[in-house]
């Protein structure tokens, strides 16, 4: 099995019960990366991150170094950390925020120094009440330790970090919606262009928005060098990554694995990882990167966990969450629940998303509950085609943000892979799995 001996970059401390405390953090090399960064020029720090080729861990996989480079032409005013993790079955940032808040803060401070930003906001999902408390407590301790605030560690660099609570809205994970929310407004994604908050961000000022896991990688990268990070993984997918494994596996959880070197088969079935599917059942399908991603069947289980590899196979590694469905799972019910989620979380700005998700959910419900018609399958595909024309991957954009075009993924996959199941629901007047 291909579980490599790669170092644990962001989960090294999590074996300790007190991994969230300053004492444990300092005893395990904490804030050494920041101290080292402060002896370097900001450009040299940014260069290490560039060398590491660190891809953003939020879902889109945009290289952090390139995001920062846009700002060098246009000095950054704000750094905002996206900790609004809400993609269904994604629970890696939850772990990092609760269990290693100092690592996140140190990463944030390194980024702030590289970007020469003096004001940082860490946006944390409101439902993470313990996470909010842990990060605020860690910040209080970090201030007292001299790592945050004025003239940090005697370097002459000053930075303030504010923890901002979300209030429950999936769409605020979209970076422009997050900025609207941070400005005290409804979480409506902003019209593009501009495509990046680097041009017009918080309060109209140039802003960098990075994910929690992306930030948490920075202390290790600075201490060990970008080249050491880039030596892990393959191609564009460098370093390690957190994979959140959920659904029908013996050991669901978050696993830090070297990029590309491990396959979905390893992750799901290796005794040290997922441990296989319980009750001796077979694999029906799995979702490789959050519910916005098209599904894979058993024939794609040997694909490596790499951004480009999964992309070439017609889906995405996205947020790094893998949902396993065993062969007793109703594909219609699974796709219906995912569609219901999008329908509830659509912000309502764009008609294809707002209306489309609602109608899709209603049609899926009537099929699952035995009131469907045979032509409903084509009706579903037609509605999906109106949201994301052509049903291609990546999808065509008809809306302000990518929530809308993500809706057809699960329905399209379910129909493509399990059309017969839809027909059985219609003919038998109910769910055959009930």
């Amino acid at each position, binding site marked *: 099995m291909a579980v490599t001996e790669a170092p644990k970059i962001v989960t090294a401390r999590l074996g300790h019960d007190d991994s969230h405390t300053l004492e444990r953090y300092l005893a395990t090399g904490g804030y050494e990366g920041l101290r080292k960064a402060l002896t370097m020029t900001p450009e040299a720090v940014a260069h290490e991150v560039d060398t590491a080729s660190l891809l953003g861990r939020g879902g889109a996989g945009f290289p952090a170094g390139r995001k920062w480079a846009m700002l*060098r*032409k*246009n*000095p950054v005013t704000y750094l905002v950390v996206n900790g609004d993790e*809400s993609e*269904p*079955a*994604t*629970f890696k*940032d*939850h772990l990092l925020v609760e269990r290693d808040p100092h690592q996140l803060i140190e990463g944030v401070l390194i980024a702030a120094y590289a970007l*020469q930003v*003096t*004001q940082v906001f860490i946006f944390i999902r*409101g*439902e993470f*009440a*313990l996470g*909010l*408390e842990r990060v*605020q407590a860690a*910040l*209080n301790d970090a201030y*007292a330790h001299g790592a*945050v*605030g004025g003239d940090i560690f005697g370097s002459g660099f*000053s930075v*303030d970090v504010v*923890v*901002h*609570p*979300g*209030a*429950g*809205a999936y769409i605020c994970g979209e970076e422009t919606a997050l900025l609207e*929310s941070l*400005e*005290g*407004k*409804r*979480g409506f994604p902003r019209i593009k262009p*501009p*495509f*990046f908050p*680097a*041009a*017009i961000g918080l*309060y109209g000022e*140039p802003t960098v928005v990075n994910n929690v896991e992306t930030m948490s990688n920075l202390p290790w990268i600075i201490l060990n060098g970008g080249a050491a990070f880039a030596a892990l993984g393959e191609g564009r997918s460098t370093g390690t990554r957190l994979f959140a494994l*959920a*659904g*029908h596996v013996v050991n*669901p959880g*978050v696993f830090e694995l070297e990029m590309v070197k491990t396959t979905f088969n390893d992750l799901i079935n290796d005794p040290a990882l997922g441990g296989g599917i319980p009750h001796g059942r077979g694999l029906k399908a799995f979702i490789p990167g959050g519910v916005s991603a098209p599904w894979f069947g058993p024939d794609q289980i040997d694909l490596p966990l790499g951004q480009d590899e999964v992309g070439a196979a017609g889906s995405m590694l996205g947020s790094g*969450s893998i949902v396993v469905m065993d062969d007793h*799972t109703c594909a219609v019910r*699974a796709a219906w629940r995912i569609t219901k*989620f999008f329908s*509830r*979380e659509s912000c309502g700005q764009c008609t294809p998303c707002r209306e489309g998700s609602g109608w899709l959910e209603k049609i899926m419900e009537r099929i699952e509950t035995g009131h469907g018609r045979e032509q409903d399958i084509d009706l579903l595909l037609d509605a999906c085609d109106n949201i994301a024309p052509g049903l291609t991957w990546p999808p065509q954009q008809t809306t302000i943000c990518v929530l809308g075009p993500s809706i057809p993924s699960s329905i399209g996959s379910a129909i493509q892979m399990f059309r017969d199941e839809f027909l059985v629901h219609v003919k038998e007047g109910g769910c055959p799995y009930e």
Partner: protein
Amino acid sequence: MSDATTPVAAPRRGGQRATPAPSHLSPEILERARRTIALYPEPRSALIPLCHLAQEQDGWLTPEAMVDIAGLVGVTPTEVLGTASFYDMLHTEPVGTYVVAVCTNIACLLGGAADLLEHAEHSLGVNAGGTTADGVITLEEAECLADCDRTPCVQVNHRFVGAQTAESFDRLMAELRAGERGAEIPPHGTLNRVVRTTGLDADPGRVASERAAMAEAQAQRKAAAEAATTTSGAGPKAGGS
């Protein structure tokens, strides 16, 4: 940027309507609200944190609290409602002392969440979205709460209580009613029990001077960057895909 030394913002629209002094929020919550506003370059950014604070006082977001918040951040009460009504965690109608959220999204669905929610509805005697007759428990069907290795996932007042079976759920409800989980699970609305103790909000005068220094440093960097792009001949260009 507003002057951070005066955290109570002036009314934004024409100044025809005088901002009434806050009359609903308690002095303690008001003080924390003012310190929160001071953390942000624009007072309106504190709107959602202030809604959380108001819920800490009342358990839900009352119309009276929204009037106070509007005055504190310099918007109209309707704008506060307009923002708050977008968010699942801000309750503009009363809720129980304990808001019990049962996730039924994909990972929990595969872990039996539909059965658990059905059980919860029967044993509590309310549909999802409803509050028990004694006003203690509000049941919610939640979207993914990001605790997907412990399914079906349940939160009480946004505190994770681990995977639940029908039996453990009933025990949990009994414990909540008996007040046995109070240390771990505060009443609804208390989101963050850790108050910011240090940093730039410690002294409003210092906030202002730090902010001025930051703005000056910013301007210097911008000037330096502009000088650099002029000498290299490349025009400044931001954004693009």
